[in-house]
């Protein structure tokens, strides 16, 4: 084992060798092509009014002019549906084959800091406790995350509240490479070893100057000034507050009265991980699939006997908030919400998780 002195020195050397690159925005297409050559590339694509991450087939589709995507990029590691086993049913039983877990190295380009952080939160669930989820692990291990700072000059979306959960507009945590925009250029800095080796292998990039580096650091500093909605909470205090408010049914009913239980909030959320497993068969051929499910649906906990522990919407919404802000804290040591504001933006009846958490915090 290397002693503490040894590792300090190693860190020091690392610092001197920071991998720092740049490219002009006009040449974004070249960067996209180069990344695509390395394996599947996921990047933001405009589709009508919405921008979402997609697997890139046409270089020109990629846009970096967006605030944040409607859906989170979690589907790269955890697709909305995927086949676990494919089978053919026969008289004497099923002919079955597990579907190999696709593990080609891939890149996600343009991930906002709150979303990059969400991957680490999900890691604690899928990789950090008990049985390791092989699907999540394989894809996480093989994917490089290129984070993308929010523009320090632009006001944050009113729904966002990532400051409340300790995230800033240019946090590099969770990213392998971090990207900052400078007038007509993109500056890219290696954050992890994985990110550095990706950058080193991209001949389309130019070396960045000391001035660029100063600009990069300045952006990170300025982004501390981007202020989203904020309420003072700590993980353990809000967890305890929620436990204390659990039995206060009237409050929960009132706060969630307009919710229709559509589940949209959970589908757009980067940290919701609930899934279902079901078999789908057509003409004797089929697949055991896993797909996103949501605690907001009536039948999520419905048992074969007809018993349902959470038949009412307020109970299901309370479960959602308690899961993210209490159970997750107790179980995994952190809140499982990154304040990205997606649920609030997408809710058809304007339910806002921030207001609910704020209210409970002040009970």
């Amino acid at each position, binding site marked *: 084992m290397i002693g503490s002195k040894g590792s300090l020195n190693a860190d020091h050397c690392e610092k001197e060798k920071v991998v720092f690159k740049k490219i002009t925005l006009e040449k974004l297409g070249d960067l996209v092509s180069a990344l695509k050559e390395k394996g599947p590339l996921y990047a933001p694509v405009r589709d009508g009014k919405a921008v979402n991450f997609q697997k890139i087939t046409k270089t020109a589709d990629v846009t970096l002019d967006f605030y944040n995507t409607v859906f989170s990029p979690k589907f790269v590691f955890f697709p909305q549906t995927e086949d*676990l086993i494919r089978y053919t*049913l026969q008289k004497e039983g099923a002919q079955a084959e597990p579907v190999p877990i696709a593990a080609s190295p891939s890149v996600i380009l343009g991930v906002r800091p709150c979303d990059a952080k969400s991957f680490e939160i999900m890691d604690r669930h899928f990789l950090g406790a008990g049985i390791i989820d092989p699907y999540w692990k394989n894809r996480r291990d093989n994917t490089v995350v290129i984070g993308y700072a929010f523009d320090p000059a632009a006001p944050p979306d009113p729904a966002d509240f990532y400051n409340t959960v300790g995230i800033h507009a240019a946090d590099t945590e969770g990213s392998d490479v971090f990207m900052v925009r400078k007038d007509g250029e993109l500056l890219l800095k290696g954050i992890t070893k994985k990110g550095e080796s990706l950058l080193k292998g991209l001949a389309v990039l130019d070396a960045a100057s000391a001035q660029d580096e100063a600009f990069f650091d300045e952006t990170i500093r300025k982004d501390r000034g981007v202020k989203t909605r904020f309420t003072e909470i700590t993980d353990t205090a809000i967890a305890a507050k929620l436990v204390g408010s659990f039995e206060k049914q009237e409050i929960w009913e009132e706060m969630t009265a307009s919710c229709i239980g559509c589940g949209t909030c959970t589908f757009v959320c980067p940290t919701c991980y609930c*899934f279902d*497993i079901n078999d789908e068969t057509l003409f004797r051929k089929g697949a055991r699939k896993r797909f996103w*499910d949501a605690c907001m649906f009536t039948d999520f906990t419905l048992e*074969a006997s007809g018993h349902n522990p959470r038949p009412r919407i307020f109970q299901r919404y309370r479960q959602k908030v308690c899961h993210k802000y*209490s159970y*997750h804290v107790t*179980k995994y040591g952190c809140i499982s919400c990154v304040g990205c504001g997606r649920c609030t933006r997408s809710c058809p009846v304007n339910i806002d998780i921030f207001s609910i958490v704020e209210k409970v915090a002040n009970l």
Partner: protein
Amino acid sequence: MQNPYIPMPVEVVNIVTEVDTNDIKTFRFAFVNKEDEERFQYLPGQFAELSILGKGESPIGIASSPTQKGYIEFTVQRVANLSGGIVTAALHDLEVGARMGVRGPLGNSWPIEYLEGKNVVVVGGGFAFTTLRSLIHYMLKEENRSRFGDINVIYGARTPGLLCYKEELAAWEKRKDIRMHVTVDKRDETWTGREGFVPTVCREIAPSAENSVAVICGPPVMIRFTLPVFFELGFSKENIYTSLEMRMKCGIGKCGRCNVGEKYVCKDGPVFSLAELDTLTREY
């Protein structure tokens, strides 16, 4: 890395219809691959996902004991409801020789180590007796018996025809190292044994709380009326254990379905002491 979502192949080697209503059967499976059998190391109280491709999976308690080598058993009720009962119905349609899948063992077990050196009161109602049967077989095994104190078993069903494992019950009745108290809610002409509800029988037998642990599994109503009896007898919440049921899918604490508060019943349970349950939300 072993993929925890892929079932191991098993073959149905025996099927016993347990009850006169024909809707509860015990399935005995043998592993198709020897390595799988070796990997499937379990303790009484654990469960497994039974998989029939094209139908799905169901979590079912393991009814056999690890002391019974070469096979595993599950006792399954065919669920009759409008929308569902898909997997349990498909299971009931199987014949000996059929192949299907098993994923497990899953969850925690009855607190075997904690039970050592103590008297054990086993209370079961209806077909929820399955993992208790596993526990009884385990404790009665020659090399294990001395690790436990007195064993009292209170087991009830609505009618004599609804009692499971009848031959085993009869065999246990004959033994000196276990006291059986089998009861039915309603007697019929075939029945010469006890009549009375499980909670009432518990009160009559009044097992001492001294150095004793109660392990209780049954329908919610039975549990609701049985617990007060044990409290009256002086059993503390730390010394009463039960097994929870929640709808499940993954069985390994990943799909988020079966939580009670911060616990996933499939992974942190299904066995909990009442003291542990007291710290959780009442959503089950």
